[in-house]
């Protein structure tokens, strides 16, 4: 897990996060905002539709928008092929966690009687699933132009004997006690703490703080990608009237 030279099984050191790549170009048909995010080998696609008129009367609220989150995990995403249906307990739990995370962050009161649909597709899993889902959803919502109070940035922390580790891979996640923490970096508020293993009380505080700090590092990355995307859009809007350049053509349809 962590060898004598201080390297983890994939060559990272204790406090190093996996590579993050973010793609905010539109995907799917007619989504209002979408994001594709990878943490190392964990890959998640999120599409956001809305705010739009609610499909069902029963789920409309007169004072705010309804947030609907659906998660699908591809059968080929893990090393063992396994199909998870919609009613799968783990998926329900995951979407419920996400829903309760994002409901208070989205400024729902701006859109009464409407609905925001978030569809999450997990394409590849290598640890840190919840973390990837949260980060990707934040980005997709921002991309869709839905007003948020703040970013929500999540990261997983674990502990090997007494040394804390950040951003665990599946291998590490299976063996070590771990906790996923999501924070709103601007206010420093913690929105999610999820722990499914036993973690010693003495270690918890240390890891909890560390994960909070790491989430801020991720925030920098996420903010940059949103800004880049916006700049790119602005640039192409200014070029309207001129023939589109090759680079932007793909983003325009």
């Amino acid at each position, binding site marked *: 897990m962590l060898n004598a030279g201080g390297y983890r099984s994939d060559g990272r050191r204790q406090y190093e996060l996996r590579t993050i790549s973010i793609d905010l170009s539109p995907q799917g048909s007619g989504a209002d905002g979408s994001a594709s995010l990878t943490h190392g080998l964990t890959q998640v696609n999120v599409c956001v539709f809305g705010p739009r008129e609610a499909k069902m009367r029963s789920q409309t609220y007169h004072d705010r928008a309804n947030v609907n989150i659906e998660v699908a995990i591809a059968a080929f995403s893990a090393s063992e092929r396994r199909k998870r249906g919609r009613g799968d307990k783990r998926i329900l739990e995951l979407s419920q966690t996400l829903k309760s995370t994002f409901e208070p962050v989205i400024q729902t009161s701006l859109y009464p009687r409407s609905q925001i649909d978030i569809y999450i597709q997990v394409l590849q899993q290598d640890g840190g699933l919840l973390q990837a889902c949260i980060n990707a959803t934040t980005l997709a919502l921002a991309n869709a132009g839905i007003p948020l109070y703040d970013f929500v940035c999540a990261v997983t922390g674990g*502990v090997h004997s007494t040394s804390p580790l950040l951003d665990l891979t599946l291998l590490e996640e299976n063996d070590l006690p771990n906790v996923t923490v999501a924070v709103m970096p601007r206010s420093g508020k913690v929105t999610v703490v999820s722990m499914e293993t036993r973690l010693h009380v003495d270690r918890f505080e240390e890891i909890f703080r560390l994960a909070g700090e790491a989430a801020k590092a991720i925030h920098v990355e996420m903010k940059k990608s949103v800004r880049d995307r916006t700049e790119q859009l602005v640039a192409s809007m200014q070029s309207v009237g001129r023939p589109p350049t090759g680079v932007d053509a793909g983003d325009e349809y």
Partner: protein
Amino acid sequence: MVEITIRKRPRTEAVITQRKFFKKTARGKVVKVLRERYLRDDVACGIQGCRECSTEIPEPLPFSGSSEHQLYPNGHYLLPDTNVFLAQMDLIESSLFTPPIILLQTVIEEVRHRSLPLYNRLKALTKSEDKSIWIFYNEYRSETAIVREENEIPNDRNDRGIRVATAWYNTHISLTRPPIRGQKQTPHPTVVLMTEDAANREKAEKSGVTSSSVRKYVEGMKDANLLLDLLAADGSQEIEPTKAASGRQALYPDYLPISTLLAGVKAGELHQGHFNANQYNYLEGSVPVPAFDKPILLVGRENMNRAVQGDIVVVEVFPEKEWKAPADEVVDQEATLKNDDAEDSGEEGDENGEEVSVKESRVLSGSSSQKPPSERQPTGRVVGVVKRNWRAYVCHIDNTSLTSTLTTSLSTQTVFATPVSRLLPRIRLRTRQAPILLNQKILVTIDRWDATSRYPEGHFVRALGRVESKEAEQESLLLEFEVPYRPFGKAILDCLPPEGDQWVVPPKGEFDVQNIWREREDLRDVIVCSIDPPGCQDIDDALHAKLLPNGNIEAGVHIADVSHFVLPDNPMDSEAAARGTTVYLVDNRIDMLPSLLGTNLCSLRPFVERLAFSSIWELTPDAEIVSVRFTKSVIKSKAAFTYEEAQIRKDDPNLQDDLTNSIRLLNSLAIKLKAKRMAAGALNLASPEVKIHLDSAESSDPIDVEQKELRETNSLVEEFMLLANISVAKKIEESFPQTAVLRRHLPPPKTNFEKLQDILRKTKGLSLDVSSSGALAASLDICVDANEPAFNTLVRIMATRCMLSAEYFSSGSVAKNTFGHYGLASKIYTHFTSPIRRYADVLVHRQLSAAIGFTPLHATLHSKSHVERVLDVVNRRHRMAQMAGRASVEFYVGLALKARGEQAKVRGEADVKEEAFVIRTFRNGVGVFVSKLGIEGLVTFKRDTQFDAENYTITVPGAKKDVKISVFDKVIVRIEVEKDKNTQRGKVKMTLVEPVDSSAL
């Protein structure tokens, strides 16, 4: 706050950073696994003063390498490949082997994959202070990470990785040391790839990497002569091919391929187990396997097929009509194989070999054909070895195997080394120092055992000292039982309190800076005393008792608070965990904790304040527990008694002081506690314990041996310790159901007793009920012979040998209904009372302390796997410590006998004669047990005797008429210590005096 960074890697790198492979799961499903790795540029090269790599390295390699080697005058670093570590670990470990070594990650992983013991040795080596070894994580450095190519086997990939790393080092060194204008350029040190693989060397030379074979390298070293002996036999082959190797006849069948073995075991056609050699007959061994009640018997050299004691082997069982019973003959390999020549044994057509096989086959055929079918055991042959468990063995050089003309020369010759343990075969080794090594104890490792060679081949590791010198004997004993005996290192001693032996319990109140008194109970006024064997320095328990106003009795057991000083997860703790237990030898003690703690700060000495962990009960006068509580405390013992002193004090009616009365009170309770325990079915077992009288502390020459005496006060202490252990066990199991450290003793399988029951029935007409521990205890009580008081003890000793040994375990890892302790007839048990000398007790202290909310439980004790791992080590150490202790007693008994024999000779008396009991009968001898000395011996007859295996008797021709000897008969034996002419090792030799004199037989 630490620095948190994101490792970025471009998508294009994926080819080299991602690794895809297929894995078969335990269920047989094939899954695809994708892993990635992050390549970096900050993996340090470890060379002192390197401008590129980070400079803060604790122990860097020297700047200019080592220039002591004659082939590399410009200085060099050594970079060995995996096979060097696998085959030549002894060489690398030698203190004479000092070049700076670069150890690649690839190599470490491969060593771990191939052999765990070697990996552990390698790990220890990297930590030792007298070696300069740098671990280079080549798989994580961008320049040296490589990807397995198509059609490349893993082995080749690793070899290539090692070559690439070597080449990188060379360029790295030249790049970071550019020539400076105006200064004369000093030549750079080279990195030498050390490998035994000629093809690999060739490829290395082609790509411009300097390489060397082990032998060539060692030959150029300073101490080549000494180091060459350490080379394993593997390495010597290509240099001087043994004569006519191809023409050799295979003496043993080849092993089956490993895949066939595994498939066979899985299908149930083959059986896997540990190989146990028979100590009486070197041509026989057995392998216990789950499929049969009795172990599988292996008869003859071919069927044992090169298995060595402790190896994990795979056995094929013969059809049932070929099953045999174990032979009842003593076969000594030294006697049979005396004339075998070390140089050429095992070669085709030599007369010697013929002679040996004729002899052996005679021995084998003469034995078991007429045995009753009930005694037949499954019989089979070894078809493969899954895992060798070879280690270094203590041996003597057999001087008959030396070529006589060469006894003074220093040229290489092949000799036999005879291991001290009777379970091992002779080892053939090549050495240049044979004449010097005669009459010394030496360490020898087995390297290989070819099908064409009768004996395994090994190499010399180091000499321990002269035979029979106390130092050599003691060290060899410690090595043989793998007892870690090195002095404590600096890091460990740094964990001791800085005050040293000036440390005292601080006064209560504001001067208590460290807050030691926090939540500690002040028991300094309680009348506490300790009772121990004479000369005990590590007092870890003390007791008290007093009458309560309500008629009940308060009794307390106070145990040294070791966990206050030994904190979890520091170097002292890890060392104690690795040592597991203190080892008691006759004249020495190998401590588990540094002696400052063991014999001073933790020891509950009288008249000083000491920290303790107390367990205090309220008991009714009938010894029923009303309540129990546990607390950390401070006590001040009022006296330290020996068992004898306490006994005398208790029995003296004139003494009426508080201390004496409390001993009486404790004693009365202990008697009732014991009665209850016995009623519940606890066993009263016996083991032959003897005490060695030493002349004086310095010379430590033994004068005499006597049996240990047991007093009432021994039992007093024992009962209260048992009570404390049981109470603590309940408490920690309740608080930590998953990880509580407990001790259990499984009930022995009934078949273990079959032979003893049969002997008892046939010779004495007694029966033994083994249905439960209570029934066994009851039937042992009636196993008495009116004429022979010692008979009962003897049966108890033999019954004890049929049982399993107790073990530590973690409560979460076994089913709850197997927690019981068979011998003590307790549902739950642990060890709490001797934390100074047992590591399990330290863990129990920590858990109890957490259970009462005194300290939080350390993270590692929450992890079941961690606790299991620690307890595995402790269990093994515990067993080894017991065996080492027994072997030490045996050695001293031998010395004492010798001394006694010499005294007798001076006085003009005859030799030492003792009463003994027959415990086994063989075709050509009897096994006897001398209870007075606590030793077992073997009396062998050269002439054939009439042997009745069915009734365990042999008939020996006496002076007038034949005499029948059966098991349990009392005989008188003459005991002498004689030196083996070849190996110079002292041997106890016994001959019968009564009923017949066997010296002529």
